[in-house]
């Protein structure tokens, strides 16, 4: 049960962190297509950056931090309903955010 609670906490926090990461552009790093390099900034010759890898890293880091920092007593008390509600809301948020492409 304790491991399950941690895994569920990771998922909830990571989903929310990913949503915030793409919305606010909190990319842990950038991958530059032109030079094939990874970093936080690069010269203009480096080409367009890919942020998606950095968003994933941000989300994983936030999820891991929450899973290990939040006390077990607190994570075990989380409602089981939140486990599917939080990811559902983040999926809906992604859908709403990208609707601009279809209008």
């Amino acid at each position, binding site marked *: *049960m304790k*491991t*399950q609670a941690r*895994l*569920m906490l*990771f*998922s*909830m926090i*990571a*989903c929310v962190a*990913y*949503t915030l990461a*793409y919305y606010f552009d909190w990319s842990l790093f950038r*991958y530059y*297509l032109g030079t094939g390099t990874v970093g936080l900034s690069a010269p203009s010759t480096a080409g*367009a950056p*890919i942020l*998606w*890898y950095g*968003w*994933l890293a941000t*989300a*994983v880091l936030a*999820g891991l931090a929450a899973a290990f920092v939040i006390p077990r007593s607190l994570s075990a008390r989380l409602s*089981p*309903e939140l*486990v*599917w509600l939080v*990811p*559902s809301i*983040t*999926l809906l948020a*992604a*859908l709403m*955010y*990208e*609707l*601009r*492409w*279809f209008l």
Partner: protein
Amino acid sequence: MMTALLIFHGLLAVALLGAVTHQALAASVRRSEPRTRSFFARFRATDASAYGTPVAVLFVVVMIVGAILYPRYRLVVRPLLQTLDLRAANGAFELKEHFSALGLMLLPAYWACWRQPLVPAYAAARLWLTWIVALTVWWNFVVGQLLVSIKGLAL
């Protein structure tokens, strides 16, 4: 090389699609004895919990291969979509990115829900998370096929 990897990505996605769809449907209907020998009776008799780990592993592998292919998509396909002003196709892929990422993030919870022995308190979460994973996989598969039909990854 990239085309071979794209085909591998597609084949793995087919396996994932089959597994998660079977699991989602089997988890949604009441199990019955396979005595009637009909296709649907056998389908319902499937043990949905057996798919938890294979679906999680397949999802991660498909995602890793997709992540390797992604820069090529950005270099070859996306500029074409922008040039042709195919906004819906572009947006569909943006959603594919988010659905893949969110699917990956919720995978630990999904896997935990399907761990034996199954915890009754997580019955609703088990069902919903399975359907969420199934829907994201279906979206990603259909969009992937759509984009390959517009432009493959070959230069």
